[in-house]
């Protein structure tokens, strides 16, 4: 795929509501697909490849084409948590470049908020089929947030990273959220205590959810969804908007190991692969859409993708470069992120959507003359097992 312009994101849609009672996840997916195809100037019948996470159906991902009414010649049900969509985009780009299909649709829908899903604080239920994973974890009450808390604690211990440095990630993200009307509505509808810009002090003074993670380092639980349309260069000639080229991708997983370093994510493996694939380097990137389930997740993506050296992320994020109107490094999560705009459980698709808006010049925190973006998802549980997939996007 190296620096070639074979496959592009041609249509996007982000479902605008974060509190959406009365609609289903499948309806959010179909509405998003319809509007993303309209954004591309393509029709329902043009779709010949379907990518899906397999949720909300009766047999894995089998039912989704039926529900939509698509008759695809490529079907891919890759489900690796929140980064499923970067995996899917990577797969779609590869297969379209190989001539196996022309127009792929990726969709996501969730009603996590309306269903009152306690994503981060529920802990294991002790229900369901027995697995070795559950049997060696469920009894100790590890919540989702505590799993990330263990990684942050080790990062602070190993590298001397401070709470104030982690807080910079939340501060920059909220700065962007306040410029995005959908994010402001999201925080309002979800009854955030203060829908305003925040300071480092606000973050470190916020309630501890799972030490050392404070409330303002944790993402929201919203409803939501979206869709991405990816197409071949031949199709691009007839689409409405400027194409945003997919020029690289990588995939990896990492898990608990005896003697392993929990502060290193799977991004340390997939990041270099994606950059080599794209033929670009981290220093050239204008926009970094990094899955912000928690502050620590972003810290690891920044380090492991090579924006700074391992362990130096604290100094890097406190140098003031994360905001869209600062130079010296990529702008971070310019839509307001999972922390302050949209997190219905699997945020990875929104990283692609906002990276695309930036490459089109459509962001509410638009980076001047942005040419290259990374959308990197992190799925699963950072402290137990996770997958990290960066895809690299280029403006036309």
């Amino acid at each position, binding site marked *: 795929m190296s620096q070639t312009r074979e496959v592009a994101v041609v249509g996007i849609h982000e479902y605008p509501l974060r509190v959406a009672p009365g609609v289903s996840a499948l309806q959010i997916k179909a509405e998003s697909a319809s509007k993303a195809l309209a954004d591309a100037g393509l029709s329902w019948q043009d779709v010949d490849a379907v990518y899906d996470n397999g949720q909300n159906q009766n047999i894995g991902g089998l039912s989704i084409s039926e529900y939509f009414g698509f008759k695809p010649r490529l079907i891919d049900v890759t489900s690796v948590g929140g980064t499923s969509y970067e995996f899917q985009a990577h797969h779609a780009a590869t297969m379209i470049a190989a001539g196996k299909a022309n127009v792929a649709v990726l969709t996501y829908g969730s009603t996590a908020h309306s269903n009152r899903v306690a994503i981060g604080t529920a802990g294991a239920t002790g229900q369901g089929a*027995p*697995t070795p994973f559950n049997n060696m974890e469920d009894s*100790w*009450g590890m*919540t989702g947030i505590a799993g990330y808390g263990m990684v942050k604690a080790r990062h602070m211990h190993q590298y001397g990273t401070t709470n104030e440095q982690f807080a910079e990630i939340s501060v920059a993200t909220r700065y962007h959220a306040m410029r995005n009307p959908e994010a402001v509505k999201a925080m309002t509808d979800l009854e955030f205590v203060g829908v305003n810009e925040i300071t480092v002090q606000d973050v470190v003074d916020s309630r501890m959810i799972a*030490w050392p993670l404070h409330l303002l380092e944790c993402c929201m639980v919203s409803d939501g969804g979206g869709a991405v349309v990816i197409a071949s260069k031949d199709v691009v000639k007839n689409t409405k908007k400027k194409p945003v080229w997919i020029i690289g991708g990588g995939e990896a997983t990492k898990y608990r190991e005896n003697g392993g370093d929990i502060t290193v994510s799977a991004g340390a493996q997939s990041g270099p692969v994606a950059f080599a694939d794209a033929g670009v380097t981290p220093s050239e990137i204008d926009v970094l859409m990094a899955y912000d389930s928690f502050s620590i997740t972003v810290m690891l993506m920044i380090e492991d993708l090579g924006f700074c050296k391992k362990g130096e992320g604290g100094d890097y994020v406190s140098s003031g470069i994360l905001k869209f109107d600062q130079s010296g490094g990529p702008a971070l999560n310019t839509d307001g992120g999972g922390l302050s705009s949209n997190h219905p459980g699997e945020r990875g698709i929104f990283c692609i959507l906002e990276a695309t808006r930036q490459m089109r010049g459509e962001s509410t925190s638009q980076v001047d003359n942005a040419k290259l973006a990374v959308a990197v998802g992190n799925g699963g549980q950072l402290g137990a097992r996770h997958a990290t997939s960066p895809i690299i996007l280029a403006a036309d």
Partner: protein
Amino acid sequence: MTMRPQPRFPEPDTQPFWDATKEKKLIYQTCDDCPEVIFYPRAHCTKCGSLNNTWNDSKGLGTVYTFSVVMQSRHPAFKDIGPYAVAYVDLDEGFRIMTNVINVDDPVNDIKIGMRVKLAWLDQGEGEIALPMFEPA
């Protein structure tokens, strides 16, 4: 009081581990064909794929690798017990276990990464499995 989530069976990889806890034994596997320590339990070696391995008794002494203190848990077994520490402990025999560090007054300040800890069993009922927990050594 609501029981903690329990391991569930049949689950052949982890059943020997949990059966041993009924006798207050913390066991782990080593590969017979390479130097790998296998944990959590599995029938194959995660390094070389060998199907030959041996169960060993751990002395139950280790070091806190990392931990988090849960202030908010929705699970009925945990929501009313106050802040508790979820941790990975590195056993001296070379395996890492998820656990709780217990018997400290203030988990945030009394537990340190790198701290030495020792095994402490939490009974789950007569004739039932026991949960391996750790306390300051």
